[in-house]
């Protein structure tokens, strides 16, 4: 049974697209048929972060309007087997994503894929609602920072009231908290909210912590999902998120101290 997962946050710039690219590539690396959809009509960027921007011919809105087939619009990733991208439209107005059209595309994708990842635009407007409406699960991407936490809470409220599962009285969307841009040192000095603080306020289960890391920008510069850079801290952290999402408990990755590294345990 295919699962639809929305990557959402409310606030912009917290790492939704980075997470969508890394999480979908991570699932595909584990052998799952995965497709990632860009819902940010007019401000398409997933293609760029995933390094397939020059291969876009047809997009999501073309498929909805019947101007191209789903097969024509789906871009097969060149690095990871079983990973596909459906890019957003760059030119159309955002109302082009109709509820019926989105439902039809998702139904068709469900027949082919195990995981359908929906990269939500920022904000709480039509595009964001369309991205979350049909979801079974949600990754709520949050920075340890007041505006991001507040917006995430707003989004969690919408997940439980404005989605198909809420409207049709079905079991609620399964929510996962993903804290990104985390700097443990600044938490220690009392300058940054801790994961425990964020979790206490938002009250949803934690699926992972992505450290603030230069590797995230380096990966997006190159158009490579950061999980493919396996030796980076952020890449490892995303692989752990995927493992936890799949129900495994990844090994603890406590950073070893200088002396431990020198002399061993």
């Amino acid at each position: 049974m295919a699962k639809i997962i929305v990557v959402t946050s409310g606030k912009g710039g917290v790492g939704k697209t980075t997470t969508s690219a890394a999480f979908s590539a991570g699932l595909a690396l584990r052998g799952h048929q995965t497709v990632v959809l860009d819902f940010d009509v007019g401000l398409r960027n997933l293609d760029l972060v995933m390094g397939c921007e020059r291969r876009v011919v047809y997009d999501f809105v073309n498929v909805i309007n019947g101007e191209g087939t789903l097969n024509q619009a789906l871009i097969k990733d060149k690095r990871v087997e079983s990973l596909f991208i459906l890019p957003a439209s760059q030119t159309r107005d955002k109302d082009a994503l109709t509820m019926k059209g989105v439902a039809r595309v998702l139904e068709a994708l469900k027949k082919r894929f195990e995981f359908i990842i929906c990269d939500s635009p920022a904000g709480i407007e039509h595009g964001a609602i369309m991205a979350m409406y049909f979801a079974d699960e949600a990754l709520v991407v949050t920075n340890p920072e007041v505006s991001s936490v507040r917006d995430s809470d707003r989004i969690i409220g919408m997940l439980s009231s404005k989605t198909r599962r809420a409207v049709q009285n079905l079991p609620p969307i399964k929510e996962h908290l993903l804290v990104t841009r985390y700097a443990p040192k600044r938490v220690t000095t009392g300058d940054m909210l801790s994961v425990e603080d964020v979790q206490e306020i938002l009250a949803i289960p934690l699926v992972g912590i992505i450290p603030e890391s230069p590797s995230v920008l380096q990966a997006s510069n190159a158009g490579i999902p950061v999980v493919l850079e396996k030796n980076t801290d952020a890449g490892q952290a995303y692989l752990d998120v995927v493992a936890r999402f799949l129900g495994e408990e990844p090994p603890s990755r406590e950073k070893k101290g200088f002396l431990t590294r020198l002399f061993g345990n």
Partner: protein
Amino acid sequence: MRIFDYFRILQPQKTATVAKERLQIIVAHERRLRDPNTVDYLPLLQRELLEVVRKYVAIEDEHIKVHVEKEGEYEVLELNITLPDEKRLSPL
């Protein structure tokens, strides 16, 4: 109390602690506003209270504030009416 504790008191609160406290308050407030069960009657209550008060005192719409706060098992209805200056207080 040890001598060092005095210095701790003098230190300003860490910003992360301030952030958490502010967030807890605003998030709780906004959740109440979203909750369809608790706030539906507040606008109407506010309007009717305003009418009653206006029978005796001339006040503007914004001078009345109604707020429901949940404290443990209790719900506290807070009503705040700002009366105009003495000079402007005249029997209607």
